[in-house]
């Protein structure tokens, strides 16, 4: 079974989770042998942009050891063979089209989306 994970809610609880939980889930499933690819859209499209840095959070005296690295997580998936798709329109609307980004990210136009969805047995939109 081939699954396309569409991730749209970027930076959702990523500070306290120390991960994007859907990118994390994709990583776990891939490691377990799943055939799974990712489309990053909406605010999550920004995950492909380089140069992101999170200062670990301190609340009161509770100091966080590891901040999240959503770009690194995404790069990690790409290095494991997961296809990472991003909509051109999402990067352009956010002014990020010309920003340095993950080399393996495949840009798609909106017209190409139905064809992409048809390549998968199931499409999970998060």
């Amino acid at each position, binding site marked *: *079974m081939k699954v396309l994970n569409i991730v749209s809610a970027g930076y959702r609880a990523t500070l306290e989770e120390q991960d994007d*939980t859907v990118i994390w889930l994709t990583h776990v499933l891939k490691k377990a042998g799943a055939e799974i690819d990712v489309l990053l859209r909406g605010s999550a499209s920004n995950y492909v942009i380089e140069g992101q840095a999170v200062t670990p959070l301190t609340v009161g005296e509770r100091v966080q050891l590891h901040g999240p690295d959503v770009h690194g997580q995404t790069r990690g998936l790409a290095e494991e063979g997961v296809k990472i798709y991003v909509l051109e329109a999402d990067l352009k609307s956010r002014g990020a089209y010309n920003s340095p980004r993950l080399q393996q990210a495949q840009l798609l136009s909106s017209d190409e989306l139905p064809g992409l969805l048809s390549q998968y047995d199931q499409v*999970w939109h998060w």
Partner: protein
Amino acid sequence: MTNQKTLTFVLMDAPFESSRTATAMRLVDIALGRGLNVNVFAYEGAVFLPFAPQKAHPNAVHGRDAEEEDHPLPREWVASLISKAARMGVAFDWVNCGLCVDERGAGEAIEGVRRGSPADLWAMASSSHNTLVIPTD
């Protein structure tokens, strides 16, 4: 009565936070009523849906005590779906994602719900006719 197909639903919302919870319960209810087998993978806040310590409360604004208020609790909905599946003779498997349970302290779930992992999600979805993810905001 069963028509043999299985659907998997993935839920994410904690109880009492979003109208998606009630809609999701309606969908699962419909699917069971049709004789479909149903899996539910509860991810993140949704692991609190079958949380056993949920308690109904009175409503002073309405002048109703707890019994009169009859406040539905998501754990009652889940229990009721489990019963419905049994009556319909179909399979109903509710799995709470274990790490989500741990970080939220949601370990006390009602009977009939089990703890699992992303491997269960993959197993459920792979053996299902289709999967619907109902995401949170």
